[in-house]
């Protein structure tokens, strides 16, 4: 790890002010990705702004008809929250599948979403649930937020403050995990809200998380596993690596989507 200046921010406002003053500084959330990346010298920010003491970035609440989760809320808190389990059980389920217990005790929803790892879980939830990412400056719909591999609509110094999830009628997440890293080889989040069905796929796309429109069309007609008969994903544009080639990933999208729909309907 290269040397950096360490700064602690007790509030979101302080964090944003610091980001405006410091050159080449990054926000440090749970650090479960940023610190390993810095150890490997793949990132070498001149400064870190530690958000772990910023209480105003933590918490889970209902606001109107939306479940709103603070950016510094840790995975363990989402996974075990009675409110999340009642309002969007699929989201609690997803949080409990991230990494391992010690990683879930540090990692945060805001960190995961800002990092936009192409195999991370939360981006799929945001996209399928039609979440809004609320920053210190503006509200960004999930459809416009994830722009590519590790790339988002966030500008320099812009901080995710919270994420707002409209409550779905039905939702579920299924992932086929890499047994070592526990990241998704393929993860599929399905959500039904009114007539609208959204299907988001993580782990598979060469360009990051994406929506599977042919699955969405089939499920909009009938939200049932049978509606997906004969529906498949194309291998073009999917990742190929030692864990799974593109054709296998395409197959897994179908399998995970069917499992997720069955799970969503079972609730």
């Amino acid at each position, binding site marked *: 790890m290269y040397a950096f200046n360490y700064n602690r921010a007790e509030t979101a406002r302080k964090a944003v002010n610091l980001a405006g003053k410091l050159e080449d500084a990054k926000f440090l959330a749970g*650090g479960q990705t940023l*610190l390993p990346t810095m150890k490997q010298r793949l990132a070498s920010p001149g400064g870190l702004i*530690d958000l772990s003491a910023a209480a105003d970035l933590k918490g889970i609440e209902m606001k109107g008809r939306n479940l709103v989760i603070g950016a510094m809320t840790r995975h363990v808190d989402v996974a075990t929250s009675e409110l999340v389990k009642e309002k969007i059980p699929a989201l609690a389920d997803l949080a409990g599948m991230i990494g391992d*217990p*010690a990683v879930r005790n540090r990692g945060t929803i805001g960190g995961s979403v800002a990092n936009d790892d192409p195999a991370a879980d939360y981006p799929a939830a945001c996209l399928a649930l039609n979440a809004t990412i609320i920053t210190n400056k503006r509200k960004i719909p999930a459809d416009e937020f994830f722009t590519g591999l590790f790339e988002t609509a966030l500008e320099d110094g812009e901080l995710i403050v919270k994420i707002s999830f409209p409550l779905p009628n039905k939702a579920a997440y299924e992932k086929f995990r890499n047994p070592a890293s526990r990241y998704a080889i393929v993860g599929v989040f399905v959500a039904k809200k009114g007539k609208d069905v959204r299907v988001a796929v993580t782990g598979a796309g060469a360009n990051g998380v994406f929506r599977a429109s042919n699955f969405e069309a089939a499920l909009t007609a009938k939200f049932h596993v049978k509606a997906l008969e004969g529906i498949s994903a194309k291998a073009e544009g999917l990742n190929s690596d030692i864990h799974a080639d593109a054709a296998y990933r395409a197959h897994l999208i179908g399998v995970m989507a069917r499992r997720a729909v069955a799970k969503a309907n079972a609730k």
Partner: protein
Amino acid sequence: MPKVSMTVNGKAVSGNIDSRTLLVQFLRETLRLTGTHVGCDTSQCGCCVVHVNGTAIKSCTTLALSHEGANVTTIEGLAHDGKLHPMQEAFRENHGLQCGFCTPGMIMTAVDIVNRKGNKLDEQTIRHELEGNICRCTGYHNIVKAVAAGAEAMAK
């Protein structure tokens, strides 16, 4: 160099450290508490698990400075008055180790599992909860037995 202060195993400690210092480096190199190990250094193996404010975390993937004012417990903090903690005793009794390198992390994780899940743990729960701890001797069978026995002993 910035200063960090925290409570480690009940004692107030502080040190002037490089910003880059990981919590595990602060424990091992500044405080000379070498019971906490570094295995993979990539938050996979769990050898470095310690408790911070009552929750288990991987001390190789967090900065010491992030834990200003925190209450940290390491493997050295479990035994009291020359008597092993029940979970340590259970690992000894059940031979829950081979080379012993992963043992400090295994035990700290095991105590955390009991804190969260109670004293009656079935094998499936233990294996699932231990997924962030790797034993490269692959001595999992006895580790699982040790955790179950230690969990029960902790109730007494």
